[in-house]
């Protein structure tokens, strides 16, 4: 079963060329909506192990990755396919909205 993987400024690039769709969850310990969204993201990581990789990036510890994608609000979910950002979701969203966006991206 696939799980959410913690990425950081040092290793983020190694995930970019994955053939899977990448969902990047930008979060911080002070962001309560981020914490409340985590079970939904865990479910998505588990349900789509073949096609989707879910990464989480702590913005406090990884400012380079956050600023590279101009992330200035939490929660932010980026959907990346073939190394390109396809779309993003800003604010608290439910698992259904994430799945719907995923189906549009894939």
């Amino acid at each position, binding site marked *: 079963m696939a799980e959410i993987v913690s990425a950081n400024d040092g290793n983020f690039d190694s995930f970019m060329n994955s053939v899977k769709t990448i969902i990047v969850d930008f979060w*911080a310990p*002070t*962001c*309560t*909506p*981020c*914490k*409340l*969204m985590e079970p*939904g993201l865990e479910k998505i990581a588990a349900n789509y192990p073949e096609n989707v990789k879910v990464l989480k990036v702590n*913005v*406090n510890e990884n400012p380079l990755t*956050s600023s590279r994608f*101009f*992330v*200035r*609000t*939490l*929660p*932010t979910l980026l959907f990346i396919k073939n190394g390109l950002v396809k779309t*993003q979701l*800003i*604010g*608290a*969203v*439910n*698992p*259904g*909205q994430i799945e*719907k966006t995923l189906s549009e991206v894939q």
Partner: protein
Amino acid sequence: MEKNWDIIIVGGGPAGLAAAIYCGRSLRKTLVLEKQVFGGQIVSADIIENYPGFAEPIVPAELMDQMSKQALRYGVVLENDEVSGVHYENNSWRVDVYNNFYTAKAIIFAAGSTHRFFNVNGEKELLGRGVSVCATCDAPFFRDRQVAVLGGGDTALAEALHLAKFASTVYVVHRRDQLRAEKILQDRVFKNSKIKLLWDREVLSFTGAQRLEGIELRNKKTAAVEVLACDGAFLAIGTVPNTELIKNIVELDDAGYAITDISLATRSKGLFVAGEVIKGNRRQVSISVGMGVQASLACEDYLASLE
């Protein structure tokens, strides 16, 4: 998942969860549908200091987590799903969600409200690129930077005080020449050397390409236009009620708030409303909780009258 319920509560914020606790204790089969996160918008705030019964400040997410658990304890089902329609047909209420629907004998509509936007140039484009609706979530991005909070109520001042822990300067930009917020918050803001007030300013646009660089403002008294350079702009100018789904089945006022009788019943039998969909709520958790309780009691009376 069960299809038919006694009561469906639309919205899992303070009003919806308070109603759910009472519906559960009335032994009604109750489903709560929440499109975002259980607990509602208040979970994004850093503290609550005025919820009665707690002498010390409390963390809103913890308070709302307790409310969710209290509802679960009485058999209520909490489901994360977005409601797309509410209709009365074949002697019951039908609630549509993504790829599915449920039915119920009664509805408590507590869908809350959504942040109000200025609807000016640059606002939507720069949302998440410096324009924000959640200071608690986003303040760490603005460490040692200049930011502005737009608004003059409780939310605006609470956000300004939180941002002042991170930012170099926090401008509170308000369209009037006095604040509406609680006096205790005003007192703290006036005493904070990092917070500066700009009165009588109207927002014309948000400027910047990849990220926010400034806010174009007009002084309402002098008509002078200026650009306030800042990296962050936090919108706190109130909310609009989420009543789109019930606009054809309940009476709404000009601003879109639901009109009810004193029991929180609407003109549609079996449809009750609670929380920030009702005018005059003033966006307090304690008021929404009280409304949720009231709506659930009225709903219980209604269901009993059918039996």
